[in-house]
């Protein structure tokens, strides 16, 4: 897979994640219950839990920032793009691991949107690592 293909895939993941986190921010700010495809109530419980905000900022909004950064990383060529993509995706998967722990063992509810975001960021991290190899080969 070429670096260009990886960047395209990263951009696609970033747009998907941005749409998702924008939706979750919107429902959070309006006090609405997010649509949950299965496991009725899980998304609402997680979104209404005390962990849904940090310093008054919805976690979904932080996610929006992360996806915008990931999109920028996909646009940027070479070293800077690689480093930015790695930084954002690594922060995100570590924080997603913490959020998943909260869902499983503290809140006792699973939000499919959060799981989807964790999957996207894990894929972005793997692509970022592969991208490092491609950039190194070029040197």
């Amino acid at each position, binding site marked *: 897979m070429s670096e260009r293909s990886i960047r395209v895939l990263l951009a696609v993941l970033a747009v998907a994640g941005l749409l998702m986190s924008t939706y979750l921010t919107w429902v959070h700010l309006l*006090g609405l219950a997010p649509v949950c495809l299965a496991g009725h*109530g899980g998304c609402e419980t997680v979104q209404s839990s*005390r962990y849904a905000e940090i310093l008054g900022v919805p976690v979904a909004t*932080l996610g929006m920032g992360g996806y915008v950064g990931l999109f920028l990383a996909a646009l940027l060529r070479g070293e800077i793009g690689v480093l930015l993509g790695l930084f954002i995706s690594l*922060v995100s998967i570590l924080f997603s691991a913490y959020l998943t722990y909260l869902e499983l063992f503290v*809140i006792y509810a699973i939000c499919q949107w959060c799981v989807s975001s964790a999957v996207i960021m894990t894929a972005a991290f793997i692509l970022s690592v592969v991208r490092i190899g491609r950039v190194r080969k070029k040197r």
Partner: protein
Amino acid sequence: MIKQRFSWLLSIVVVCAVIVAALLVWLSQTTSGGSEEDIRQLLADIPQNGTTLGSEDAPVTIYLYEDLQCPVCARFARDTFPDLVKSYVEPGEVKVVSETLAVIGPDSVPAAKAAVSAGEQNRYWEYSMLFFLNQGRENSGYVTDEFLTNIAEKTQGLDVNQWNQARESDAVQSELDSAQASAQDEGVEATPTLVVSGPSGTSKLVGAVPVSSIATAIEEVQTS
């Protein structure tokens, strides 16, 4: 040389990412939605009588229809209720009466009984807010005796043996029935619903409304 520089940059990025993630976790743990101590401080020195919080002489009464399993009620308790208490209940302008419902499902019943039983010792509000702080997914079976007793033990000033006996008492069941009947009379269709009642009438609000909406409703029912 260039490869070595890139490796160094990668290492720095990884270390920075771990630090930022740890900072986010720390902020999430320390700043999210108040702590048990915040709840105790909020309710300290405010008169409680059963499920009523605030001075009996307050000119405005807010009837709060809530189900302890309701996630939006938990959000209201966390985001709006503290401001409501500080701005209106503490100065004696408003009293809040919880009309505790058990409508969401099987887990709502023991939860409501437990909270209302704490109200028998005038500890309803601390108990219900601690419950909301530890709320799980609706009807997932998390409302066990152990869960409820754990909250009772954290509720300051609550005699746990007395609370345990009250849980199956007729008085508590009667209070729940009364709240249910009141909800039907008021046409309550969702939780939380706030019925703001004052000298000039009543105003109904639904959902985790901000304190500004409640302030407007209070003004409406106060003006004659």
